[in-house]
């Protein structure tokens, strides 16, 4: 999977939101503070905030990160939001179909028997909020980094690979019997 499409979209989105004006001024400080940007606590806090507020779900961090083959089994949903601007990369939410339908049901109050467009929109929207919440926790990144619209992939036996990332955070979480994995991957920081 290549992230170029979502990244281009995120960069285009960022251009309309004042990123160009702040880019030069912020460039130095973001690279210098990569330990802050890559702080794993920010991801946990973002997941907690989004799932509690939007879904009323208290997620537990799973000590075991679900491997891609596990997630890539039958009926997997992957939502991708691209980052563009001071930081380029993506926020990726992966879960099994059952978890995706639970998330969408909790968001909309509807019941789902299959992965339809509403489920895909719901998972994409949660990924969008996770990306927004995550970048808002890093000073300078909220205004200096644009988000793409969500891309949602469904299917099985696929993998997500990013070449030589600057850093990658990959955490799994559990609610009830369902689980999901969130990955923040950064392949460029200015």
């Amino acid at each position, binding site marked *: 999977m290549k992230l170029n499409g979502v990244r281009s979209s995120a960069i285009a989105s960022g251009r309309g*939101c004042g990123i160009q004006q702040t880019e030069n001024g912020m460039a130095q400080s973001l690279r210098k503070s990569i330990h802050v940007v890559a702080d794993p606590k920010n991801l946990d806090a973002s997941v907690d905030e989004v799932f509690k507020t939007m879904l009323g779900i208290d997620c537990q961090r799973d000590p075991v990160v679900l491997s891609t083959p596990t997630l890539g089994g039958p009926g997997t949903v992957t939502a991708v939001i691209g980052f563009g601007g001071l930081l380029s990369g993506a926020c990726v939410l992966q879960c099994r179909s059952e978890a995706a339908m639970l998330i969408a049901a909790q*968001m909309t109050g509807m019941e789902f028997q299959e992965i339809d467009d509403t489920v895909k929109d719901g998972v994409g929207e949660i990924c*969008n909020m996770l990306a*927004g919440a995550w970048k808002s926790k890093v000073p300078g990144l909220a205004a200096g980094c644009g988000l793409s619209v969500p891309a949602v992939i469904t299917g099985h036996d696929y993998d997500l690979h990013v070449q030589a990332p600057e850093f990658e955070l990959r955490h799994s979480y559990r609610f009830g019997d369902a689980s999901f994995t969130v990955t923040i991957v950064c392949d460029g920081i200015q």
Partner: protein
Amino acid sequence: MRKIIERALRQAGLEQLVVREAGTGADGLEQLRSNPVDLIISDINMPTMDGLEFLRQLQAQKLAPGVPVVMITTESSEEHVKQAIQAGARGYIRKPFTAEQVKERVLPLLKSA
């Protein structure tokens, strides 16, 4: 997002509202030509036509004059909010949001409509 907002409005006690949905900004503009509304709620981050462009088109085409528009955004920076207000939005809701927050933003605008 449309289903989520509709559910939040109903959870906030606004069950009597008639909600019209548009899948895209262009669809929303088209619907507004023939369907008067009291309030418009739009996401900013949308494909094809983003929420800010939707607002600009809304004003340029003089559709729904005086109708308050609330933007929903994941972006929390002052710059994004300023752009939405400058483009004509009367309020914004930051994602993630609770039904109560939707009510707080929407109810005063509906009352003044």
